[in-house]
């Protein structure tokens, strides 16, 4: 049995080596950022957007000023908790747990490390040394809903959702309001795969939506890359992307993207820390503060009629000015 346990140990060690990457030196005047991700740094969605944001900060402030390590595929909050403690013990100052599911584990860990700032999102409950960041995803979703509502030929649009929770509910609710505002005849069909990372299932769900007549699709979570690839293979169907600009995946099918400016959020956190605030702030990302951006895919931007563009732009300005408030579910 000795040999067996050795084998298992080897495998475990190997797989942990593979999931925990990075490295760095200890130095007190540095900003040391650790990132906990539910999926991977190349998921072309939520996780990758934050990862790239931190790389940009590192670039901007100088590689010698910012230390950065990350751990991927920690969808399970218990495993994440262990990684968070480890980073805290290693002397990281800012630990970002990039998902709403990490709220309770941070509540538990944070009091033990008062000199460390923790951050998580989507969320709004913060404590002395926890920042909660909160993208107002419903705002961009509303604009996407308008595009879909105004441009759909079949009057059917489909949503490829992960599980009915937090971010997805927010996005879907905003999207529905946008469609409703411009075209009440459209049938918005919401379906969930029951998973965040089941790429084949997301692809199959997108196919079912399209077979059932949908010509505009949207959705959240890392699994949507499967849906986008499925959309790419059909003509006349568009995808509206979220979290990141996903147009490289389907240059002719992704129409527009709602993206988050994590650099600004990170700078806010760093600034707070420099002023002695370790946490306790609710950091909202919105169109108004410029931390949410809407970008058309230049390849297909020409397919968007000018009046649609105008209507969307007008609504966007109204949201920014506060004249139009996109409701959130209770």
């Amino acid at each position: 049995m000795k040999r067996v346990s050795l084998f298992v140990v080897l495998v475990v060690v190997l797989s942990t080596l593979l999931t925990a990457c990075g490295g760095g030196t200890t130095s007190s005047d540095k900003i040391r950022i650790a990132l906990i991700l539910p999926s991977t740094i190349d998921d072309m969605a939520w996780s990758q957007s934050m990862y790239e944001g931190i790389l940009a900060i590192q670039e901007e402030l100088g590689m010698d000023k910012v230390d950065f390590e990350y751990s991927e595929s920690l969808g399970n909050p218990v495993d994440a908790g262990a990684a968070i403690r480890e980073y805290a013990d290693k002397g990281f100052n800012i630990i970002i747990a990039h998902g709403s599911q990490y709220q309770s584990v941070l509540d538990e860990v944070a009091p033990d490390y008062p000199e460390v700032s923790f951050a998580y999102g989507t969320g709004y409950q913060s404590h002395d040394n926890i920042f909660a960041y909160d993208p107002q995803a419903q705002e961009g979703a509303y604009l996407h809903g308008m595009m879909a509502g105004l441009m759909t030929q079949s009057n059917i649009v489909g949503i490829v959702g992960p599980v009915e929770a937090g971010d997805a509910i927010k996005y879907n609710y905003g999207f529905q309001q946008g469609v409703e505002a411009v075209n009440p005849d459209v049938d918005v069909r919401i379906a969930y795969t029951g998973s965040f990372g089941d790429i084949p299932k997301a692809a199959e769900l997108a196919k079912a939506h399209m077979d059932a007549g949908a010509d505009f699709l949207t959705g959240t979570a890392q699994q949507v890359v499967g849906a986008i690839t499925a959309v790419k293979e059909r003509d006349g169907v568009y995808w509206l992307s979220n979290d990141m600009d996903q147009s490289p995946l389907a240059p002719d099918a992704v129409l527009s993207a709602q993206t988050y400016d994590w650099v600004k959020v990170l700078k806010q956190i760093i600034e707070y820390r420099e002023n002695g605030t370790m946490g306790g702030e609710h950091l909202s990302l919105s169109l108004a503060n410029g931390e949410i951006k809407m970008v058309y895919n230049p390849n297909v931007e020409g397919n968007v009629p000018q009046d649609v563009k105008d209507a969307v732009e007008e609504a966007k300005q109204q949201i920014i000015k506060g004249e139009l408030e996109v409701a959130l579910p209770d």
Partner: protein
Amino acid sequence: MIDQLLQTHIIIGVLATGVRLSTPFLLAALGEMFTQRSGVFNLGVEGIMLMGAFSGFWVTLVTGTPMLGILAAIIVGALMGLLMAFVSVTMQAKQGISGIGLYMLGWGLAGFLFRITVGYVTSVEGFRPIAIPILSDIPILGTVLFNHNWMVYFSLLLVPISWVVLFKTTWGLKVRAVGVTPEAADTLGVSVRGIRYACVVIGSIMAGLAGAFLTLGHTNMYGDNLTAGRGFIAVALVYFGRWNPWGILAGSLFFSIVDALQLWVQVLGLDIPYEFAVMAPYVLTVVALAAVSGRIWEPAALGKPFDREA
């Protein structure tokens, strides 16, 4: 609500989706059936699928030829099968644990290799559906069964082939004997190790193909943990199918069609809470499993290493 579902094009959609979804289960479960029939319990199917999915994807991305990707998945599957066979047959390790080890190895290694070779989400040109002449023109059935890519046909074809191999050949007889009473087979000069090695490798190759189907015949892309537990479901389907190819076909289709149905129920906006819809294939499979339960069909030597001197 039901009449919404009973429209022809929706029925066709559900069934065609179900057949397509069943392919990875069918490939992996038929392979695992051979493995288990020989008395080895390989819980590492998921890890092998991930490695097959990655290697098929990467080789196709580099060469542009999906058939080479399939070849890569076969080779990688065989290698992982040899590793599993070495650990469980030669070293006589606890098979449940070494299977979990293989799963973790496959998961970690596939993710790591993807990171260093590709490192971003991209897609490849996978296999296209081939409509089978004449047959694909049959109403309903044509679209449901005869308008898929070759891997779907191949997996369906493997059902009768597996059945013939298992029940009608001298080799299949040895497999069945080795999985129940290896000492009896041993006394008749049957190489217990040889049969088990062969079956573990065959099972692993088929798991590799199941993974490659996901990347080359279904989603045309690779992503972390792409298989999302399908390998474990395949292992469960072997039990469901009572180690019989037809039973496994029934189980794979049942699970996949219920899964397809629940997707369509959601897509059509029928008034069923999505949680119930998503759970449906699992719950119904468990119910079906309980209804046909009884372990009398399980190969009696399953999971037990064989040692002549013991």
